[in-house]
């Protein structure tokens, strides 16, 4: 299925689509309010972009420095070339300590690697502890947004899920009560979790520490009660200095949700006495992306989600329509690197309005990359037939002035007397699905020009 097909399923519920659109726009507005309060915000964006650019230009050196410092802290560092190796490393660590239960805080990387199904298949009990992630886990769905995993759901949906799985009263839909039920349910899980997995927002080369940002406190609670902490990170999470966190912590939450900072900004460097800490550094296509000059900027992403909140297509098509771990504009430029054939429709899920680029806190040229991916996808012959033939037809018409003039005349005349049901038949004019064609002019510009300007 392509993005338009999945989006069509989402938009078939017009009321919900409108609600989804407005909810995310509300988050965008909160972002604006937070951003405009910081006079140096644009300078911070440039700094963040420059720091990331520099780090990518010496990534091998920073990775080695980070590894060395983490090891000196007593942390075990693992390297995974792909998702499969990452998953195997995690399972091996768990088996090594004889653990069968796992509490997980938010990690898009482990989603990308499909860690949960792998561990469950191998007999591990996996509990996602971020509230939104837990909701979608109970529903056996994927997150639909980077920072708001359950944004596609209404409180009635969550109430029904909790009624089935947590035993809340039927019809309970008050967010306060539902959150309280989840708090009690997840506290039990925290208390018995043997191993805690977290993602990584930033990895600091000069100290070997990893920084995790949450609002709920689930990462800290999980890690600090478990015997073993496994931090899973994409290799692009590195930044050189602790001081650089000053830039990134000022940008992240403001861009994501409009908060001045996340509730917990946690710095993990050394395991508590008698406990273990592991860091898994994952490539999974990132070195390939680094080698693509047009697209390597996408590795600067700090996963704030601002580009989705502002995207007119994401807001109206929902995260699941992208069918990729990272949805929205940033997902549409990351996914073709992973599998261009499978995700070939995603770079077209954009109006190229550039709003994503405008809000990106690390100045990724998202819309320019979308445009570039389109060209590569066309060159590789991955366009859908309708688009391929349409473009071919169009280019042959535009290249032949006589045919173009003739076609224009036919259209002007035809539109006047052909029945609406025919001109707006969605089977061969999908453009007219929710639009009216303009009234056909009596003459073409060319005719008018020849008549008027002698």
């Amino acid at each position, binding site marked *: 299925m392509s993005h338009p097909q999945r989006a069509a399923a989402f938009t078939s519920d017009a009321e919900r689509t409108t609600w989804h659109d407005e*909810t995310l726009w509300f988050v965008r507005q909160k972002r604006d309010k937070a951003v405009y309060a910081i006079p140096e915000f644009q300078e911070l964006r440039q700094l963040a972009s420059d720091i990331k650019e520099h780090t990518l230009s010496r990534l*091998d050196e920073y990775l080695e420095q980070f590894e060395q410092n983490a090891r000196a802290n007593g942390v075990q560092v693992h390297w995974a070339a792909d998702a499969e190796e990452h998953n195997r490393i995690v399972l091996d660590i768990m088996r090594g300590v004889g653990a069968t239960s796992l509490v997980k805080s938010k990690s898009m990387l482990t989603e990308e690697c499909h860690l949960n199904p792998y561990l469950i298949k191998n007999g591990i009990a996996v509990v996602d502890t971020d509230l939104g992630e837990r909701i979608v886990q109970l529903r056996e769905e994927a997150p639909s947004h980077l920072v708001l995993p359950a944004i596609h759901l209404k409180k009635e949906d969550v109430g029904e899920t909790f009624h089935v799985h947590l035993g809340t009263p039927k019809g309970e839909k008050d967010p306060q009560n539902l959150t309280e039920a989840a708090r009690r349910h*997840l506290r039990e899980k925290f208390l018995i979790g043997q191993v805690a997995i977290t993602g990584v927002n930033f990895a600091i080369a000069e100290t070997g520490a990893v920084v995790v940002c949450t609002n*709920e406190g689930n990462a800290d609670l999980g890690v600090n009660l478990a015997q073993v902490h496994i931090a899973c990170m994409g290799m692009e999470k590195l930044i050189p200095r602790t001081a650089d966190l000053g830039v990134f912590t000022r940008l992240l939450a403001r861009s994501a949700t409009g908060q001045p900072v996340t509730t917990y900004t946690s710095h993990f460097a050394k395991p508590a006495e008698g406990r273990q800490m592991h860091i898994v550094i994952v490539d999974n296509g990132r070195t390939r992306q680094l080698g693509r000059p047009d697209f390597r900027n996408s590795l600067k992403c700090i996963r704030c989600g601002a580009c989705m909140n502002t995207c007119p297509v994401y807001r109206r098509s929902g995260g699941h329509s992208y069918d990729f771990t990272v949805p929205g504009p940033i997902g549409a430029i990351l996914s073709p690197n992973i599998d261009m054939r499978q995700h070939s429709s995603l770079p077209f899920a954009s109006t190229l309005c550039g709003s994503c680029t405008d809000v990106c806190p690390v100045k990724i040229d998202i819309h320019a990359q979308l445009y570039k991916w389109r060209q590569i996808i066309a060159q590789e012959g991955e366009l859908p037939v309708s688009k391929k033939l349409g473009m071919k037809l169009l280019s042959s018409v535009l290249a032949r002035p006589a045919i173009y003039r003739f076609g224009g005349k036919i259209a002007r005349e035809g539109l006047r007397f052909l029945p609406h049901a025919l001109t707006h038949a969605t089977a061969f004019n999908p453009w007219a699905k929710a639009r009216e064609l303009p009234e056909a002019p009596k003459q073409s510009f060319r005719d008018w020009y020849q008549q008027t300007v002698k």
Partner: protein
Amino acid sequence: MPSRESILAAVRANRPAATPLPPVADFAGEATVEQFTHWLHFIGGQVIRLAPAQPLDQVVRQLYPDATRIASDLIPATVPVDQQTPTEVLEAVDVAVLRGELGVAENGAVWVPEVNMLHRALPMISQHLALVLDHRSIVATMHQAYAAVQHTGNYGVFIAGPSKTADIEQSLVIGAHGARSLVVLLR
């Protein structure tokens, strides 16, 4: 370690031309109690200014009249907590009263290093959290905060307000997994 070598080799082959690392950023701002208070209120926390001679335990008792299990190294505690305290004991703590090292005016965050926590899980597992902060240790922005902290140590957290979530229909709910309330006691 074959993957380590192959990954590093691929990075070396694919990395872009070197660009300079920008100097450490520093933007000034207002390092005032008013700013700090404004932002902490904004994110759901509370600031209480202590009078110079006001005994801390008396304030805590007034704030949490129903709390029976209090963990602290600043006032007489009813639950002793150290790094070895078992989870069941931690889980039952009503209030933790701990020392904050540094406050950040632009966002209401307070730096709490591991040594101030008694147990790493205490600030999150306790039902309520009170952080005692010297009003002179408020800085303007995160730039000054990291400059002052220098090294973030074995484990340390900037805590900004109570635990919260908006994962159900974007409705803000205070008290997700961590502390249900956060009070900063300024002295």
